[in-house]
């Protein structure tokens, strides 16, 4: 015990940006270690999208009319971009629940009392979620290939599609971060992170041909950021898509998806970090 007071802190760099990166990586590592110690969370996260693939592909597959074709293999190719995109948005709930849990257990207070970069706790969490999203997408792609999904473009475009998916997933985890900071319990963060995702992901071109929706609904679907990501993936995968629409995001889905994601990150990161700091001196 006598040595308690004699360790001199070896202080690392103090440049604010490099400190943010460094602290974020420390927190991300912590969250990844946690995830590896609670594998059931990762496994449940995988089961859900796989279930969706199987349900949609085999239950709805025969009765859907896509691009003039009722062939169930056409629907499967159409469907996958939607499932991929929906899966990455579900990371919202995980991020929210994780941060709410940290608040609940007092870890956020521990972090707040440390001389670390203010945005690092949330950035570290969202980075760890990004890793989990990438893992989930990989497993999902393998399952998709097994049920007959194929790409018809070059490897660069396919990787570009996955890049857009990861960017969209990362953006959505910032929405989750804000939810997690705003609710009292992890349970509330989970349901609060999921409820609004259902209308967002279903009022879109993800699972049905939005050109057959009533005009006002179609308008929403066409401008839905989620639809832009789905459409961008279909284009980059060379998979059959919905009937063309005049809406700008549907005409330029790759750009639209990237811009939407960056905007969501900028807005929700700002709000979440401000909320994290708000009660702090």
């Amino acid at each position: 015990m006598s040595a308690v007071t004699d360790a001199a802190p070896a202080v690392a760099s103090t440049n604010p940006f490099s400190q943010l990166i460094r602290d974020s990586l420390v927190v991300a590592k912590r969250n990844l270690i946690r995830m590896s110690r609670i594998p059931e969370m990762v496994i449940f996260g995988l089961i859900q999208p796989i279930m969706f693939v199987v349900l949609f592909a085999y239950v709805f597959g025969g009765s859907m009319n896509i691009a003039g074709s009722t062939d169930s293999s056409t629907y499967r190719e159409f469907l996958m971009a939607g499932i991929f995109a929906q899966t990455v948005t579900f990371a919202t709930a995980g991020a929210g629940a994780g941060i709410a849990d940290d608040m609940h257990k007092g870890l956020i207070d521990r972090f707040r009392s440390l001389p670390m970069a203010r945005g690092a706790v949330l950035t570290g969490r969202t980075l760890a979620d990004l890793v989990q999203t990438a893992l989930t997408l990989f497993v999902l792609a393998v399952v998709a290939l097994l049920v007959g999904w194929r790409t018809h473009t070059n490897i660069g475009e396919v990787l570009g599609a996955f890049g857009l998916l990861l960017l969209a997933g990362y953006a959505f985890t910032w929405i989750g971060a804000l939810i997690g900071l705003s609710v009292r319990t992890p349970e509330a963060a989970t349901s609060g992170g999921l409820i609004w995702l259902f209308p967002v992901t279903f009022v879109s071109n993800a699972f049905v041909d939005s050109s057959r929706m009533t005009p006002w609904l179609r308008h929403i679907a066409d401008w839905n950021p989620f639809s832009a990501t789905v459409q961008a993936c279909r284009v980059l995968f060379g998979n059959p898509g919905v009937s063309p629409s005049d809406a700008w995001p549907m005409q330029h889905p790759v750009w639209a998806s990237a811009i939407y994601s960056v905007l969501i990150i900028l807005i929700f990161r700002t709000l979440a970090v401000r909320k994290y700091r708000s009660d702090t001196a």
Partner: protein
Amino acid sequence: MPGAIYAEGLVKTFGDVRALDGVDLDVPEGTVLGLLGPNGAGKTTTVRCLTTLLRPDRGSAVVAGIDVLKHPDAVRRSIGLSGQFAAVDEYLTGRENLQMVGQLYQMKAKAAKVRAAELLEQFHLADAADRPAKTYSGGMRRRLDLAAALVVSPPVMFMDEPTTGLDPRNRQQLWEVIKQLVSGGTTLLLTTQYLEEADHLAHDIAVVDHGRVIARGTSDELKARTGGERVEVVVHEREHIATASEVLSAFGRGQGEVAVEEHMRKLTVPVTGGAKLLAEVIRELDTRGIEIDDIGLRRPTLDDVFLSLTGHVAEVKDEENGAASAKQGGEQDTKQSGKDTVK
């Protein structure tokens, strides 16, 4: 020259609740202040304001010579925080927790690793270092929590109810750890619901109630104001009350009068001299042939302090902790120190 922890007129309201109503504190460097009070008195809120977790509505605070409101980040480099609300990650091992905290104190990875190993050794956690913290016992978890607050050996430490919920053995162990720590010159502010704990660890005690400091002084001073120790006797025969009263008044301290509760056959007298005196009282009563049902040395509890200072017992208010009510705190006090009964 203000002390290592200095606060003036701290006010914090949550909605209608005035959690802090003008708290003033001054803790000289290298000393320990015990902040004593029931749940909801404002202890935790005070600590949160001083550790930059909460911005007070009014008032000023200086910690380690740094203005808390103006330079919170500099304050964070100079303080360690441990207690009921600064947790450890239960899925990380003890070692991983300490390394993470070290790195977030801006230590280099290698230095954080060395420091973590050192602390695990010092806090007798080396054997459990590579097990997730959720497998730790309550006492081990508190020690890990305390170690996390000590990673950079901060000059100023805050501990919020460090032993609440621990069994007596673990509480004793943690007291030893804290005593060794402060003997090294660290300034410490400690909150507690237990007078005995403040008595053991603190040089000075500030009693808080309803968001204000209502009394301060050394534990002896406070105890003197509270009436200090008392001997309580229950005699077997009602006729013996008068004789017993005579005996007790001879042992009584100062002007201390013997209080008699006839229907209970119970007599109480303030004393100084502790267990040794108790033995003398028993011998004397025995010599006089007075048969007793019960005799004990009663030390002042938080409730006694409150009763004498405010005229009311420690009230139960849950807005701050919600965990243990003041009632439970009082009961624990009784178990732990209230009465050393000799039959």
